């Protein structure tokens, strides 16, 4: 450091050194705790469960994480932009229903069906974003309301009883049921979305602006960024991801029913938060979300293998959420000093 004359200057320099050391330490903990936890889990499990560390099992872990993962990447866009979306589960239902509806009308309209789902999701996302950004209502509460509306719309106007996809729509079903060299297509989709998110976040201007807006909306304005457009964009991506997830869901089971699919809500939030995406905006990486996804996926898988009673599973989720968020807030407090 240049020009350190007065004792105060020196003291300050020293403080910076120390502070930097401390910050580095906490940042390091924040970044690598996940990796460590994950590795520890894997070692523990492969030691205890002979079948854990097999290709077959990992295919299952990944495949059963596909929907949650795709959704998780979408949600992390909104969270990085410093906002939140509680309506994605409803959006998944709507998007799934739309594409199911189309494929049921014409079993050959695969492309149309595949596009319509994410498109519907994106539209919903833009609406969400506009409501939040323009009215300035708290995103949490706003999206609680929109979630109710979206779900009602889906159930009332798009869905019927159990919507069964005609077996003749082979190419549509292949998406969720087929596999290449033993690897299910949905895993490729998951990887694709992950890669796309990575590129969007790290290799495009939009990604940069997203982080900037999330880190400090005011600074972003002063720097001349279109903060509102960026935030709406984040919601749109989240909606589109919900759409993709919804479509995977429909095609994977070859049908869709209106009931009992809210369970995704907490799963996704858990994954994203465990993945270290901060609630306060501007922080979050694809790598982290992937880790979060794997950790939760591995845990669930292990609990099913061990035939753990189901109620234990939801509790473990809650505890993990608690730990992850506790860590996030705590590190944040430390940084704040």
């Amino acid at each position, binding site marked *: 450091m240049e020009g350190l004359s007065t004792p105060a200057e020196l003291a300050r320099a020293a403080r910076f050194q120390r502070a930097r050391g401390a910050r580095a330490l906490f940042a390091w903990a924040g970044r690598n705790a996940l990796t460590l936890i994950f590795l520890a889990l894997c070692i523990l499990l492969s030691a205890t469960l002979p079948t854990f560390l097999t290709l077959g099992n990992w295919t299952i872990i990944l495949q059963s994480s596909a929907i949650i993962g795709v959704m998780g990447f979408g949600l992390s866009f909104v969270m990085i932009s410093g906002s*939140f979306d509680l309506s994605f589960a409803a959006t998944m239902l709507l998007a799934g229903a739309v594409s199911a509806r189309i494929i049921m009308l014409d079993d050959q309209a695969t492309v149309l069906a595949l596009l319509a789902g994410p498109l519907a999701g994106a539209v919903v996302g833009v609406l969400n974003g506009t409501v939040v950004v323009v*009215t300035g209502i*708290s995103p949490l509460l706003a999206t609680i309301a929109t979630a109710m509306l979206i*779900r009602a719309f889906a159930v009332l106007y798009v869905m019927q009883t159990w919507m069964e996809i005609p077996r003749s729509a082979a190419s549509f079903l292949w998406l969720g049921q087929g596999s290449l060299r033993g690897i299910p297509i949905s895993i490729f989709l998951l990887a694709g979305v992950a890669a796309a998110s990575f590129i969007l976040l790290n290799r495009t201007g939009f990604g940069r602006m997203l982080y900037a807006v999330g880190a400090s909306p005011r600074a972003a304005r002063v720097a001349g960024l279109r903060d509102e457009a960026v935030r709406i964009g984040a919601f749109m991506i989240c909606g589109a991801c919900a759409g993709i997830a919804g479509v995977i869901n429909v095609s994977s089971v070859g049908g869709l029913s209106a009931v009992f699919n809210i369970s995704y809500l907490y799963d996704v939030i858990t994954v994203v938060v465990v993945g270290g995406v901060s609630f306060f905006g501007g922080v979050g990486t694809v790598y982290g979300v992937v880790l979060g996804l794997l950790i939760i996926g591995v845990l669930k898988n292990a609990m099913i293998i061990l035939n753990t009673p189901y109620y234990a599973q939801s509790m473990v989720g809650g505890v993990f959420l608690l730990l992850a968020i*506790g860590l996030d807030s705590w590190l944040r407090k430390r940084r704040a000093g």
Partner: protein
Amino acid sequence: MNWPGLRRVDKFLLKNQLAVLAVLAFVFFALVSPFFASAFNLQNLAREGAELGIVCVGATLVLLLGRLDISVGAVLGMSALIVILGCKAFALPLPLLVVVVLLFGAGIGAINGVLSSVVGIPSFIATLISLVILRGVMQWASSTEIMRTANSAVSTDHVFLAIGNGVFAGIPTSVLVLAVLFAATILVLRFTRIGTSIYALGGNFQAALRAGLRVTALEIGVFAFAGFCSALAGIFLASRLDSVTYQTGQYLEFYVLIAVILGGTSIAGGVGGVWGTLLGVAFIGILNNGMVMLTVDRDYQDVVIAAFLVFALVGDQYLNRRGETARRWQLADLWTPRQAKRR
């Protein structure tokens, strides 16, 4: 520019609008459905409303602090579960049971308070976690054999049943309790240091701090009270339904939020009060019961409720917070615990 004046007018309007709305809704349903105004249904309406109201009283104080508590539904459900278990499986003396359950509720609330104020977890998330965990526990509990037998037995303990189904001078007991709780809360808000402290904390954190208020203790206390209220409502519910499922109290938090915000309490904290909340509860209660009476499809009911939630939020945005700088909601307002600037 006399913003405060305007704001008073607006809030006055907002509150009376609500009263008018409630009355209109009542009249409307009474006209459309001949059975809406029947004594039987009114008692129902009152009982359901009372339970919602009891929860809302606690939730209002939390919102006055500028915090959120979405674990109320889970706390209510868990308390109900404990009551059923204690009363029908272990035949514990009721008074003891009641005390235990109320303490339990307050305890969970206190934990929420600690997570929010001390650990610094955004209150929404902190309470979300309690919700998830509590639901997990409820699932486990209701899957046990003892719980099942207790649950499916039809209770014959008249005292226990009287808690939730009894009437005193034609008025359901829960309504009376709500009245007492409500009066007590108003008195505390108006005439004790706690009340002023709550408004101070929600309204101007710096001032509260400089006046040397014990902000952390206050926040924990308020969350504990919210938990207490939920538990109280849980007792009535358990007795009224004489049973509980692991879903009991699901989505209650949404209705609570809607009622409180409609009642003119600002999410930003410091503005509002229990009186408005009571109107909000009345309105939501009437709306809900009336739509059920008319066998309106539940999805359409959701649409109506959601519409009112949006209405309430926008109202809150542009009425309660008018006059402050035209700053939009940052998530931080809801999430970052406002830390003291101590050096």
